């Protein structure tokens, strides 16, 4: 997988973020919408990546986690709770995914785990609705995304 395709994946993942939680939606519709986003991510990964890439199995779910993280920036209420939950989801996917990959011989990389918890800084210690903290969050998530690719090589 090329770095360009990887960056493209991040951009592609973020497209639905502003719209997904904007309008109030019924539970089944919302569930279906998130699942369809995930399905589209899967098709995207299938198209641009190949199973040789060690994190191939994880990639659509990492894309989903990134999307959920970014989408919390556009929430109207309880942003703090949902932003931290989305970050934890990302950590969860990365940690357990890499743990199971490490048994297969893929080296465990620590960098996303050093970067992602930094996101709790703006979530908990800065005003969650201010522009600066939102910018910070976006930077940290983008950094986690990039670093998890760079240090794989």
């Amino acid at each position, binding site marked *: 997988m090329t770095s360009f395709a990887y960056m493209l994946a991040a951009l592609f993942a973020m497209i639905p973020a502003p719209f997904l939680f904007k309008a109030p939606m*019924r*539970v089944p519709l919302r569930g279906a919408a998130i699942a369809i986003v995930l399905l589209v991510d*899967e098709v995207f990964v299938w198209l641009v990546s190949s199973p040789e890439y060690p994190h191939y199995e994880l990639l659509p779910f990492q894309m989903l986690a990134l999307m959920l993280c970014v989408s919390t920036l556009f929430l109207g209420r309880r942003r703090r709770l949902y932003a931290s939950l989305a970050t934890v989801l990302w950590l969860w996917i990365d940690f357990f995914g890499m*743990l*199971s990959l490490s048994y297969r011989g893929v080296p*465990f990389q620590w960098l996303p785990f050093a970067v992602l918890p930094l996101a709790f800084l703006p979530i908990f210690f800065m005003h969650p609705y201010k522009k600066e903290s939102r910018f910070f969050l976006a930077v940290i998530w983008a950094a986690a995304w990039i670093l998890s690719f760079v240090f794989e090589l």
Partner: protein
Amino acid sequence: MNRNFLIFGLVLLLPSLFAVDSALSIGPASWALSQESFWGTPIADFVFWIGLAHAGTLFSAILLVLGVRWQHRVAFLAELSTIAALGVAASFPLIHLGIPEAFYNMIPVGNARSMYVNVESPLVWDFVAIFVYGTVSVLYLLLHLFSIRNASLEKYRRPFAWILFPLVLWVHTIVSLDFAVTFVPGWQGAYFPLYFIFGALFSGVALVQILVELSHRRVRAVEDLLIAFSWALLAFWMWEANVKAVWHPELLIFGFLVPQLLWISKVREISVVRALVAISVMASLWWERIGLVQPENLDWTWVDLGLASFGIGAFCVAFALLRILLKKFFPQAFDEDVMESLRERVVSFERKKFWISVGVGTFAAGAFAVYFIWNAPAFPGVRMIPVLFPIGALCAGISLSLFAIAELWKTRVAVMCAVLLAVFAVAVGGLLYRGTDVSYTESLTTVESVNPALGTSKQATAELWNARCAACHGKDGNLNRKFVHEFYPLPQTLSLERLDSLGLDSLSKVVLEGRNYMRPFRGRVTDAEAFALVRYMRSLAVQKKGGAVP
């Protein structure tokens, strides 16, 4: 409802006890297992039931944490089903084991022989996580029950839910790692944690849907969740089809397409359809676990089916008995008006005690990690993390319960409980530390390997015959009449036909053990020699008959 549940459960449970009995007495040979993966239906049933045990926590803890207002009635129903399903789930790994009574070898305590359990193994994580989840769920249910009576306990519920919420997801993540970390091609999948969590929640919601239908109620939100989760599972199944080239159309039909019926409002109004949809979902998820554990087609024995029936029967009986018991001790929990009025309660959050408990849990987990790394440094630290959180959660949960006990009764009672618990833990730990005596008492005597195909050489056998047997049987195999006649009644002649009808095996046994007037020769000739002698005798008989020796 309880009565019907009990009868239905007993009808399934009692015959299935035959299967459990046979599974325990005969062992894993009694159900279908492949020689490649060694895991069978008990593991699939275990994953299925542990998945169902997630419903209660979803409805009471997770939704409480997320601030969703929820009916206490449904939450309570789900919590009870969690406890029952967890008990059923925990019995399956024990049935699965080759030596079920030795399961305690998995408890992560050191022992006097400085043998340490392998914290790298997902099964240790699994064991710890399920034990902790069971304990904490019971504590949470008790807290819920007591808080109905005593409103001052309400402020502990949300802190407790915050402990239970990650724990339940952690438990199923670990169940998924049982498969994900292996080298079995069909079991590998870095995406399994999320996949299993959603599968578990899906089946759990379906179970609650059935329970709600059976109590003649209707909760639209549960139906909505059913549809939402069916879409999530669709995404996972598609990804599995892509990554592992596994394709199960029956799952898509019964697990995805059937729940879509609930979109049609006319169909959705029919209660039977709602129940059938939930049953179809549960059946397809059970089938999915079977397909995961046993990718190849196996010939199931009746034990496989019996164990499945045991799961359902035991769940129904446990659920009904739990309800009967609780109705007796906590009648308010079954009172509609009381439960509805609980919705209006203001739920506050006991911050200080929550953080103290979290501190206790963190300390316990840290202490465990230090203890283990100190004593068994060979294990990679990162692979210990999955077991640390459950240990921390257990300690945090117990500490919160102690606070609640202090609130409910007196501080003195809580201190006493803590002391008793500590004594109990130390006693069990000490017992495990001491270990059990291991001995292989074998009443077997050592035997020599004999290969009659090779045998003793003919020359040696002839010499042996002349030395040992010829006195009576004669050098040429004809009875030494004169000699025998003096001491014994004359036996039958050992013709070739007679020798062949007796068989070489039994004749060599006669040589060793003796018969009638013939003395046993064990100790004087070896097993191999006895066999060789019999063969020699036969060859003499053949010669006498005029044929060539074969």
